[in-house]
């Protein structure tokens, strides 16, 4: 949806960063470290993918971070609920808890999308409100403390541990791959599969085409018979469900769900989407861009960690490099335009 050459900017910046880190940092390019980066990126990548759908429609979803918190505590509560454990067993509880987390995220997304589409309230305001409310709800559910490890005296201690382990097999599991000593992290696999699916939906389906059309020109789309409200509702539901799934993976990984989980995740996700070439003005963006943007942030964090850079400096460096990545993209677009102008003169 953007000029082909202009899309190369951020992937090139990512490649350059990987190259520099590979030269500077021993062990950076090792399979173990690269899979670690993918694991650390997967939560943000999944959320950024959902946000990309919303941002292409010229919307925004600030609530995803709080949704991670709310969906996470609901997942953890379901996972360790005595009733669920007795009826479904530890494995079944993990499945039910996962579905609860995704459904909770989708529900907040539907609420966001419904208010945006039907009542015409600005997405920034709507999702700012749900961001605040969802965080409050997460704290209300848990009384402010994380849900997870049972007390040693808990009569269901064994089963709760088994349920936490079952979900951990997804959130923290690794699939054995020859040549990879620790295997390939499951969340990274989930992210890659979702990005591929997201790309398919955006490029090849009617819904995806309508998402771009609504973001590119809402009035023209409406007059062309596009169900603008339904399309918007769909993107917010996808975004919310994505955040819910991210929460499930996070609970699995940590074996607990905390009400304060996911703080500021919305900003990381929006940053990843925008770095990946999605325009906040709508109409432009790709699923692969969201992945590229998330990877760029992940590589940066990992590289600075390995270099032993103090975390305060890391934040500053991250800000600078986010700006540079976007400037690089702008510069590439200009160079591309100049090249085409020269070609036309010959």
């Amino acid at each position, binding site marked *: 949806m953007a000029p082909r050459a202009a899309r190369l900017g951020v992937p090139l910046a990512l490649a350059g960063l990987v190259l520099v880190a590979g030269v500077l940092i021993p062990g950076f390019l090792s399979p173990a470290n690269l899979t670690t980066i993918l694991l650390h990126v997967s939560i943000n990548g999944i959320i950024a993918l959902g946000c990309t759908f919303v941002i292409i429609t010229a919307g925004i979803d600030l609530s995803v971070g709080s949704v991670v918190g709310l969906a996470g505590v609901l997942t953890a509560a379901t996972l360790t609920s005595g009733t669920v454990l007795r009826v479904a067993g530890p494995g079944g509880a993990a499945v039910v808890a996962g579905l609860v987390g995704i459904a909770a995220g989708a529900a907040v997304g539907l609420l966001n999308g419904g208010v945006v589409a039907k009542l015409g309230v600005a997405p920034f305001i709507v999702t700012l409100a749900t961001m605040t409310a969802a965080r409050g709800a997460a704290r209300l559910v848990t009384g402010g403390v994380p849900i997870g490890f049972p007390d040693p005296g808990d009569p269901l201690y064994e089963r709760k541990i088994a349920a936490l382990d079952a979900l951990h097999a997804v959130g923290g599991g690794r699939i054995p791959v020859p040549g990879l000593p620790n295997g390939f992290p499951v969340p990274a696999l989930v992210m890659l599969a979702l990005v591929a699916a997201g790309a398919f939906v955006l490029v090849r389906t*009617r819904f995806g085409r309508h998402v*771009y059309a609504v973001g590119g*020109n809402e009035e023209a789309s409406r*007059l*062309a018979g596009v169900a603008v409200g339904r399309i918007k509702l769909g993107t917010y539901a996808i975004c919310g469900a994505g955040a819910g799934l991210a929460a499930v993976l996070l609970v699995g990984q940590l074996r607990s769900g905390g009400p304060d989980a996911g703080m500021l995740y919305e900003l990381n996700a929006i940053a990843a989407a925008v770095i990946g070439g999605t325009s906040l003005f709508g109409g432009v963006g790709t699923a692969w861009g969201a992945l590229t943007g998330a990877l760029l942030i992940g590589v940066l964090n990992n590289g600075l960690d390995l270099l032993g850079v103090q975390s305060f400096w890391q934040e500053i460096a991250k800000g600078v490099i986010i700006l540079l990545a976007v400037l690089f993209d702008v510069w590439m677009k200009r160079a591309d335009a100049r090249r*085409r*102008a020269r*070609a036309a003169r010959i």
Partner: protein
Amino acid sequence: MTPPAPSPTPAPPLLALRAVTKRFPGVVALDAVDFDAHAGRVHALVGENGAGKSTLLKVVAGAERPDAGTLALGGAPVSFGAPRDALSAGVTVMYQELSLVPQLRADANIFLGMEPGRHGLLDRHAAAARAGEVLRSLGADFDPATPAGDLSVAEQQLVELARALVRDARLIALDEPTAALSLVETDRLFEQVRRLCARGIAVIFVSHRLEEVRRIADEITVLRDGRRVFAGPAAGIDDAGLIRHMVGRDVEYARLRAARGAPGDPLLEVRSLGSRGRFSDVSLAVRRGEIVGLAGLVGAGRTEVARCLAGADPHDAGAMALAGAPYRPASPREAIARGVVFLPEDRKTQGLVLGMNVRENVTLAALGRFARRGVIRARAEREAATRQTRAVELRPPDIEREAGTLSGGNQQKVVLAKWLLVDADVLIFDEPTRGVDVAAKVELHQLIRGLADAGKAVVVISSELPEILALADRVVVMREGRVSGELPAAGATAEGILALALPASHAA
């Protein structure tokens, strides 16, 4: 202004362009063009879309730098690196899309960027007083404290002119200033243009409407494909000659009204339709194979009626019927499903998704036909888009080209291709050829006539009387939100339509 000066060039030109050349990717926008503007005279610039008029204005305004050639102002060579260089030299361009800040008051807009005052403090009284004075000198009767966004287009143009005057403009270029004006407003604007000339200001006037050019211009330059193909006094050439120069061949602005048998039963019927504050008691009927022209001044309520027919806006009185069945669409989506489509007057904001390519725009309204379980069948889509763009003779016939990079006429063809793909029964065109060049206009007229001949019911809204007369089988005239009369094709004349369209006080 009407009698041309005795000698063709009485004095050295205020602005002189010599051999100005400007290239863009894939196109030579200006090819060694000469152009003069004289103090106190109106020089009209005409040509089809893409002929290079806008580029020439941008070069004059300092918004584009020429690749070759020279500019001289008052005999001295100049080089405008940016619009502000041109402004400080007294050269102002008033673009079609006005550049006012809608939230700011008219007087604040006039002084924007050169606010009077000291040490960063605004002298608002001085600004208001001076702005009021200049506006009054231009015949404006609105309060200079009105936010610009609340003013009509004609009033906003006066604000732009006032802005040029307080900057001591020596040359003012007007880019299609009458496109959004009613006849009365156009007359008033021309009066102001003549006053500007009387003050010794040079005026460049760009328009598609030849009769306006004829009324106001002292000299005319015709551009075609970036080259100057005619320049001379307005009195020395007739309309047919101008059109010949513009298109490079003889065209007939043909009456396309086909002589056909008695039309069928009404397909779309509207009875006493009303929408509070916009129009009331509108009744009309459109039959299969018939083109109904909806004439009237800008603001008479034509577009508002059309939007109700297409489900884009609700109505609160009256009823509609489609093929005898009640018809009350709640959205364009419902209207399309019933076979009623609407081609809005503003292609850029309502007709197209400019960032999408031609193919995606053409199939947008009928995407369901190319999707299986929601997945688009790329080949079927490509084939349909190719077929439709061929049918409307899109140039270039490139379905992957971004819609925003096409000329106005070709953009309109893309909108038309989109709706042809829907295979609707009723097509409502709102100003189908606004801002479209003469050759494309003729093609669009033929396409619209072809639709009626194929049995569609067609409504055409147009502010151009020749277009209504060329196309319509029946003319319905609106005035101030009501139908003021209906004329059969045979009895319709420009004068007859105008008499029904003009407000009562003017008609007498």
